[in-house]
């Protein structure tokens, strides 16, 4: 059970959160099929640091952006995803 230091609620058990997906720019609604295809299906799945979105759905209901090591589970950064969205 991991511990995520929510910037709004403080350190909370992983069970309060739901994993969303790896961070990627959400394509524009009129973006090409290939762009959407890549967004939906192509994942990097790295061994090591990984940027990912988690939803604090049993807490503040904010989407958080974490950099989490997939090997050690060390969380090197956590912040609100709002406003930190990867630009297109």
């Amino acid at each position, binding site marked *: *059970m*991991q*511990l995520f230091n929510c910037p709004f609620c403080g350190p909370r058990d*992983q069970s309060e959160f*739901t994993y*969303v997906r790896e961070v990627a720019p*959400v*394509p524009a*609604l*009129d*973006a*090409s*099929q290939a*762009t*959407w*295809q890549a*967004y*939906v299906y192509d994942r990097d799945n790295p061994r090591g640091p990984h940027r990912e*979105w988690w*939803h604090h*759905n049993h807490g503040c*209901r*904010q*989407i958080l952006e974490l950099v989490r090591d997939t090997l*050690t*589970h060390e969380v090197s950064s956590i912040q*609100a*995803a*709002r*406003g930190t*969205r990867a630009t297109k």
Partner: protein
Amino acid sequence: MSQKQPNRLEQGGRLARGQALRFSFDGKTYYGYQGDTLASALLANGVKLVGRSFKYHRPRGIYSAGPEEPNALMQLRTGAQTEPNTRATVIELFDGLEATSQNRWPSLRFDWRAINQTFSALLPAGFYYKTFMWPKKFWMFYEHQIRRAAGLGKAPLHKDPDHYAYEYAHCEVLVVGAGPAGLSAALAAARSGKRVVLADERSELGGSALWENKLIDNLHASEWVDQTIATLRGYPNVRLLPRSTVTGVYDHGLVTVAERVTDHLRQSPAHTPRQRLLHLRCERVILASGSIERPLVFADNDKPGVMLASALRTYINQYAVLPGREIVIFTNNDDAYRSALDAKRAGAQTVTLIDTRRTVDAELVNRLRSAGIEYFGYSYITAVHGQTVQAISVLGRDGTGAQKIACDLLGNSGGWSPTVHLYSQAGGKLRFDDKLTAFVPDSLLPTLMTVGAANGEYTLAGALAQGALAGDQACASDANVPQGALLYHAPHAEPETNFALEPLWQISKVASQGKRFVDIQDDVTVEDIELAHRENFRSVEHLKRYTTLGMGTDQGKTSNVNGLALMAALREQPIASVGTTTFRPPYTPVALGLFGGADTGKHHTPVRRTALHGWHVAQGAPMTTVGHWLRPKTYLRPNETYEAAWRRENLTVRQAVGLVDVGTLGKIDIQGPDALEFIQRIYCNNFANLAVGKLRYGLMLREDGIVMDDGTVARLGEHHYLVSTTTANAGKVQSYLELMLQVAWPELRCHAVSVTEQFAQFALAGPRARETLAALLPHCDVTDSALPHLAVLHTQIEGIELIIYRMSYSGECAYELAIGADYGEDLWLRLLECGQAFGIAVYGTEAMGVLRIEKGHVAGNELDGRTTPADLGLGKLVRKNGGFVGAALANRSGLTDTRRASLVGLIPVDGTAKIRAGSQLVATEIEARAPGVVAKQGFVSSSTPSEFLGHSIALAFLDNGASRLGQEVIAASPLSNEFVRVRVVSPVFVDPDNRRLKGGQS
């Protein structure tokens, strides 16, 4: 009955001798004392044979004095509280304890399956894999026989009457293990004022200090333990947890501790859990888990009367039991010399020590000889005589000096293995230390420190020093710790060096006849390991799976290192390069009930109740769960069957008026200047022209173009919408909207808030619904012109805000009324009163399901995560110019193929047959009954008998379905042997031109 315990020493031990405790083993009564384990009490009573081995059913005795026990597994207690495979070495004795031996039939002394030994040549490693693979159809027979022979104890047949609990707690420092190193660490950490937890799996804290004849701070070790525990109890920041096994180390400082709260009592006191699972978040862990002795591998090393050398001195010193009179110690190291000396001191008639080494510290040998202990150097045991140990044969390693020595107890030691399980679980890497001949922690972990024997530091003075240093360090990083609190001086013990050892991994087959067991619990011999090697199972993980080495309840605590060393020798590689198998939680077996904690029965999942719940229950309505919601299925009248009830409700809605609780539907309030833009992006159909006071069906796609959910969108104001979702998807849709608003389109000025629980909502449906509504709201104009289909009316009833949505799921003229949840039941009762004149009846989910199938409305069965809008016959709703989620990927050729299965209706050709949901659609019955693969054309998603139509109806997905109206296919359900000829029809069975919906009669 005599309470005599023949092997009990007159003095010593940590026992309360005042009152003898009565217990039974295999039906026979014995006596022991408070402070005994079941194992020590059995040994005190001279019981040698306690079980039969797993595969060969060989007689076995008590082998260890701790959690590593491979042999003495017991069925503890009786009835619903019976527990299999408990280790006698860790079960605390209580008055009235009942234990039975396992894996024997008809009795422990005479066991029928011991014949397996005779045929052991036919039962090598991998026997099951090789033998029972063919002929394939015989597996059913084999499996039955194997299941009967497999396993050890018996699982209880009744519901567990005990209860279990979770506790969540935090501390700065957790010390695992309360031996000398752990106690020293806890003392040091306690001084800092930080929260310290000291957990130990045994009932009594103290570890090896309870059974080693050594001095600490000039006190006998066990007296020092008493003093130290008293000191620790004086610290308010220290929590002592005896009977608490640290079972696992997880991420971010989480440690689980299984606390056996009342296992040592005959009966749990009221309101006390049997066991408690502590979820402990710790900043630092100090691992002082000690080490486990490993055996030597020689012929018949499994016979009752053979035990670990350290177990012998534990029984003597801690439990005041001398389990034999004529004792032999067999060792390859110095440590076992203590056992020989302690046995002699305790009054053994003869003690003999056999050492495999040529060179031994002369001082040690002198000490033996002056104590009157016979000594054989550079020798080994070649045979163990008797069913239980009666004599051994010893032979010099130079081939001379063969001798037979009478004995009734054989202690053996092949060295010690640090208990590194939790260190490995935490991600630590191990290193094989050739000098210590053991795997030891190799690296420093940021938050876990290993000290004492677990760290390969076997001397008492060293363990105390490492513990003290770790306790200091664990607190040193904190600026709040006062100056001077640290630099704690370790308790004093005589300096020594780590004991000397010269590995001897097996006594060769040439020298000794008989089975040489490596893993005693799983009956794995040296020959099995050699066979695995010959058959190329050379990785340690393969070795484990193929031979079962290191499996079972003990997970190879005594056997793994010996097995790895033998494997390394066969591979002609150093042990270091063979490596170890993975250490996984739990460290020792945990009762399954503990993982469940209190989350069983009605506490298993939370329950959601609508505002009308109490009323439904008062009607005696049978309830169903939808997600976490409870919903009434139907309302039975006196003398009415379940099916008659919902068939009646179905007809009432079609012929008069019905009322149903739809409070479970997801309700999301969306407000803001950009609310419309947001709604346009998440729904694939158009809302740009939806006027205030109107509502419309809405269809939502996933990013991949598949339908996610459907519902309605009502425009309550210029920038105010209320959208509904299906009951099942409400949570998912809410989370999705939040993701898109926060991450994808943070520029949109709107909010989406769940208001599901804020409203009570019910649907009033049927040809007389409008009259009922008019009776409720005499001040309102609810005529078709004022409140037409898909209109919204904001009004009040006695000053309470009420929203009426004219929409229909049933296909009848229908209204959904939404009111603040607290007013729900009152409004519901008024509606029933108003509808009485028009024949109103309440209906449940069963009738609701029938009504929606009759009308061809899709539900969860159709929105199954595989269907597109076109598949559902809703393709025309989708905006052609895109601009919504899912638009891009919905255009993929696989999703736009016109041959895809699409929604159709089915009716039985004979007019009477029932169509089973889940049936496959195939062209002909011959094809349907043919063996092998059948060309399937679709499947039945929803089906029901329709009281209104007088026959069964079904919704189905059929290849190219829209163009096949009028054709006949077979709905095949081979499992129930049903093959129904059905005709393909429109999925809208009732009122296809929507006249009833708009208030007319069809």
